[in-house]
């Protein structure tokens, strides 16, 4: 079978898997992005017990394999089946897709919080003092000065994190989610057609390339006001 024939035969299934991969990555990254700004603030200036807990959480998430985290949630929840059923949560944990999203959110949130913390620390103090001097409240300073600038600084690193999450989402296939990797393994196990792996690799690279392009476009938008004042 030629490469073109094999690709056109496999493509519908692979695209179906691609959709799941994008959904896993998008949900994981977006939900994590909801929590990371608040956590980054706590990480920098919260009460000490909260700071300590947050540091332990981040260290754990970064110091253990994602696969182990996934197994801990997906298989580990089985140990508390009775308790989870009583709480009405068992149907959530029984579904491997849900567990994968939950783990990706927890994992990505740890990384995003650290990246955003770096961004917040890199905002020049003069800007914050200037905002206070013209009478902005603390909330206004955060919303109008600190966070917009912190996100501009952190943007490239956040993009890297999303790409890492996209690659890591392939691990969901190990707990029987049929994402791009899951479909690929399924096709290979049925046909022993080795080229399917290269087709999957091409698709993963394609997502990365498209994502990098889109992310740069957004970055250009975010930094437009700065470029304008610099006379470019």
């Amino acid at each position, binding site marked *: 079978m030629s490469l073109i024939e094999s690709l056109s035969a496999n493509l519908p299934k692979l695209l179906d898997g691609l959709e799941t991969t994008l959904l896993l990555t998008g949900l994981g990254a977006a939900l994590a992005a909801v929590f990371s700004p608040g956590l980054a603030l706590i990480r920098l200036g919260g009460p000490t017990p909260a700071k300590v807990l947050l540091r332990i959480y981040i260290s754990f998430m*970064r*110091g253990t394999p994602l*696969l182990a985290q996934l*197994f801990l949630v997906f298989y580990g929840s089985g*140990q508390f089946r009775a308790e989870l059923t009583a709480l009405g949560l068992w149907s959530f944990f029984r579904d491997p897709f849900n567990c994968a999203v939950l783990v990706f959110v927890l994992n990505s949130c740890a990384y995003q919080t650290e990246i955003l913390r770096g961004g917040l620390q890199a905002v020049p103090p003069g800007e914050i003092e200037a905002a206070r001097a013209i009478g902005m409240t603390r909330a206004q300073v955060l919303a109008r000065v600190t966070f917009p600038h912190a996100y501009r600084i952190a943007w490239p690193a956040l993009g890297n994190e999303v790409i890492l999450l996209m*690659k890591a*989402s392939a691990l969901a296939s190990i707990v029987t989610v049929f994402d791009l990797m899951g479909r690929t393994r399924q096709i*290979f196990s049925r046909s022993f057609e080795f080229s399917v792996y290269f087709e999957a690799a091409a698709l993963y*690279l394609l997502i990365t390339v498209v994502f990098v392009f889109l992310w740069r476009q957004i970055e250009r938008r975010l930094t437009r006001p700065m470029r304008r004042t610099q006379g470019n």
Partner: protein
Amino acid sequence: MMETLFSYGPQGWGDELLAGLGVTLQLAAATLPLGLLLGFFVAALSLSRRPGLRAMGWGYTTVMRGMPEILTLFIVYNGLGLGLNRLLDAFAPQLGAVDFPPFAAGVIALALVFAAFAAEVLRGAFQSVPEGQVLAGLAIGMTGRQVFWRIKLPQLWRFALPGMGNLWLNLLKDTALVSVIALDDLMRATKVAVGVTKQPFTFYLAACLIYWALCLGSELVLARLEARANRGLRRV
């Protein structure tokens, strides 16, 4: 209860987990030198003066860093397996179908990935050597080769160490993936224990804690190494 679960001997799983941890460490330790060697080679390609070689270096790092590690692992494991069986069919058909040794496949796949990231770290480190030092070397009459061996290479360690430290931590964590291709590492030993005891949360948490301890220990060592690498540096 806990003591018996994690004890040594036939009742407990302590010895099985420890054996798995041994395999995990062997895997990481075997991958590091191979990945570094390959990483140096790819970095040399990326820094080459010839556009063709540079493109090869760029292509390698881009493709390898853009692919999920688990996909690389399957390509290497199944690809080498298919290749080996094709060779055996041609030369020794009486042996029948065999599996490619998973440990070797794991080391090769992890080293290929490690090399791509290491090449980028090394390239950055080479480029971090201040231009003035290179010019100074040339000015006192060193050849390009002497500048490389006496000025650039000795400082490489210092610039590359933080990046390499991160790669080592990633490598430790990525070894968990090989449990998927039937290698008896820590992750797989945990899975076996879970199958028998029906206590998935307890055992996967134990596995997580062991990996965590490995990473925290590594971080301590890396901090010391970094302090040592920077000991001759003037503080401003």
